[in-house]
């Protein structure tokens, strides 16, 4: 049976993990590759690296990270951030990423989705959608670009449908309202998008514990859940999350024991 995926996400700046990761067992908790290996051992089903390096001059550190990860990690991983062209996509995929994630660039140039899907297959193209509730309107969410700063003037569900119609193989859906609050995902938005598209939806933004993940996967009808701080701060291990999900009746890939 196809399992629900648990996906830790790292923000990476100049090849270093940011947002304070606290793992006693790691020699260098800022090294994304070492963290990726740890999460693979702990039972992560996939990984997402979000490159927040401001300067495009420093892309070589990102390339190095992707290549070193691919050499040592044998589960799928996605790289997002700063991917603005088919050439950018090709570089990341050739270095060893399984998928690339595009967000602002997909809105600015939607044909990038079509071109990426044509060149590399839909399975390699993830469209990330950051959205906020429209105040006073039930069941409406607006898409934001540039890390949630600028309104794009797009309805989140309509954009999700368009993006998948153009060839996105997966959607990474983040609620700017719930992100960072650790009080649960925006399950109404997740459900509205998941029911409107044929491709898998990854829930993002707001996980404070495994109970929120269960809600995103049931009420929100998501196919996978992404989380950062609860894993990085050691609040919950991936094994604990998976055991909780399994007890709630959700199919998960059990964590292997060494």
């Amino acid at each position: 049976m196809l399992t629900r995926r648990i996906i830790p996400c790292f923000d990476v700046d100049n090849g270093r993990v940011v947002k304070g990761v606290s793992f006693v067992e790691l020699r260098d908790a800022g090294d994304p590759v070492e963290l990726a290996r740890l999460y693979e051992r702990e039972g992560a089903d996939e990984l997402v690296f979000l490159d927040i390096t401001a300067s495009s001059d420093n892309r070589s550190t990102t390339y190095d990270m992707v290549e070193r990860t691919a050499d040592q990690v044998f589960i799928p991983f996605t790289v997002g951030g700063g991917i603005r062209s088919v050439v950018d996509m090709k570089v990341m995929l050739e270095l060893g990423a399984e998928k690339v994630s595009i967000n602002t660039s997909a809105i600015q140039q939607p044909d990038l989705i079509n071109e990426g899907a044509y060149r590399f297959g839909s399975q390699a193209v993830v469209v990330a959608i950051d959205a906020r509730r429209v105040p006073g309107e039930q069941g409406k969410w607006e898409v934001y670009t540039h890390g949630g700063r600028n309104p794009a003037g797009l309805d989140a569900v309509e954009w999700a449908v368009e993006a998948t119609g153009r060839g996105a193989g997966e959607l990474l859906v983040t609620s700017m309202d719930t992100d960072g609050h650790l009080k649960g995902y925006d399950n109404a938005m997740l459900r509205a998008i998941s029911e409107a598209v044929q491709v898998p939806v990854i829930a993002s933004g707001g996980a404070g514990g495994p109970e929120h993940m269960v809600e995103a996967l049931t009420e929100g009808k998501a196919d996978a859940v992404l989380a950062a701080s609860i894993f990085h701060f050691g609040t919950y291990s991936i094994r604990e999350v998976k055991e909780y999900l399994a007890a709630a009746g959700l199919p998960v890939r059990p964590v292997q024991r060494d």
Partner: protein
Amino acid sequence: MNTGPVVVVDYDAGNLRSVARALTHVGADPVVSADPDDILNAGAVVLPGVGAAADTMFKLGERRLVEPIKEYLAANRPFLGVCMGLHALLLRSEEGGGQDCLGVLDGDARLFPAGAGLKVPHMGWNTVEWLREHPITEGVPNGSYFYFVHSYYPHSDAPGLALGETEYGVVFPSVLASGYVVATQFHPEKSGRDGLRIYRNFVDWARSGESVPLPSATLVS
């Protein structure tokens, strides 16, 4: 005894380097090549692949790899197809309005029936149930999880061709094995420890020089 190197067929497939890395990780020291002579002299050949069937067959043709692969396979030597590398071995795929493939294995690739809550592509970790014993499943328990990404699934009515099966809306043969040919729908190079074990088993099997009879289900003539 198969003494040649493990050759990963280079036709610009998206997972080429991931496959080569996994083989390196299990100590195989693979050669990535599009040279027909390398394929014909290989101790084992691995055909990677992601993306579209038409694109795959076009690139194999463009690089003049179809005949060397068929000649290699006709000699019943160790061969592993991964994901689109499995579809390439079938008679045809429904994809893109219909695409003829290499016709090495008696089966075809069909689109998952969308709807009824079934998301396409089939993406993520799913179980494989082994249907019989085989050298490449050594140490990989029944019901192990592997990483899948595909919209078309293999179908075959040929008796004895399926080695493992998986359920996603339909039950389909996720691993095919015939003679010295093995093909997996999932990506062992992205399936953690069990996936690496599949590669290690394949390399060990190829190097063992075991004599494997050419079965009737293999169509290469």
